[in-house]
């Protein structure tokens, strides 16, 4: 069996149990449920603070009817950021590298915003297809372009998250395998690649958090247009 670099993204299984299910179900043990106490412990306080700040930040530009989406977007953010960052640990499986999961979140949520817009305010929703102040001869072309860009949105949303995380994990695997090979041959170059690996890992931590934020931010922008 030839080992390709993409093998880390195959569905891992140990003795016929799919480990991807454990990777999806286990990280939520890190988030305790709210207690009945007046003052909570540090972990719970930190998480509450993060959720509250994030929800406030995302929903500032959205008008009141859109605030019904607060629970969905805040928990989606928690979901994605936890899966992304726990996937950076060695030997873990990152579910967000799978196109199926990301498209499974992107397409229904984008479609929900579009249907919401078309149902509650169809004129404004269709009016988004033509920017204000376009010259008259350009109108048909621009409507076509805007429609295409509307339909590209869910694909871009899902593929952006998948591609960013997959590329990051691949780079980490490439550079670490280069380091382990070079350690016996050219140790000096190996120190350079170790430094590169360290910096890349820092970048990947940042990318993991930023990509989760961007996913939810874009969904909130699509919501803002349509609610």
């Amino acid at each position, binding site marked *: 069996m030839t080992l390709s670099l993409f093998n880390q993204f195959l569905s891992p299984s140990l003795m016929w149990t799919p480990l991807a299910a454990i990777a999806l*179900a286990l990280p939520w043990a890190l988030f305790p449920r709210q207690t009945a106490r007046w003052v909570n412990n540090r972990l719970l306080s930190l998480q*509450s603070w993060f*959720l509250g700040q994030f929800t406030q930040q995302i929903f500032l530009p959205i008008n009141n009817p859109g605030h019904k989406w607060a*629970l969905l977007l805040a*928990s989606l953010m928690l979901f994605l950021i936890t899966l992304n960052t726990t996937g950076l640990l060695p030997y873990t499986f990152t*579910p967000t590298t799978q196109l199926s*999961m990301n*498209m499974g979140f992107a397409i229904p949520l984008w479609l929900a915003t579009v249907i919401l817009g078309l149902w509650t305010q169809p004129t404004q929703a269709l009016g988004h297809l033509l920017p204000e102040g376009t010259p008259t001869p350009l109108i048909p072309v621009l409507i076509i372009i805007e429609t295409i860009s509307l339909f590209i949105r869910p694909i871009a949303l899902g593929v952006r998250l998948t591609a960013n995380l997959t590329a990051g994990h691949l780079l980490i695997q490439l550079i670490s395998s280069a380091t382990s090979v070079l350690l016996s041959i050219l140790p000096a170059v190996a120190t350079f690649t170790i430094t590169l690996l360290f910096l890349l890992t820092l970048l990947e931590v940042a990318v993991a958090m930023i990509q989760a934020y961007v996913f939810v931010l874009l969904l909130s922008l699509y919501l803002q247009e349509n609610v």
Partner: protein
Amino acid sequence: MPQLIPSPWLAYLLFSWVVFSVVVLPKVSTHVFPEAPAPQTKQAPQTEPWNWLWH
């Protein structure tokens, strides 16, 4: 590319939505945010004096 293998596609999709809706949404919805402290009013609140009951 492993992401395009069709066999675990639907399983991932459904299981991730199941985990999201059964675990994450309830966990986030139980978070309670304490109210910001209200500014102090100028009037002191009216209280009735009471006698401590000494047993």
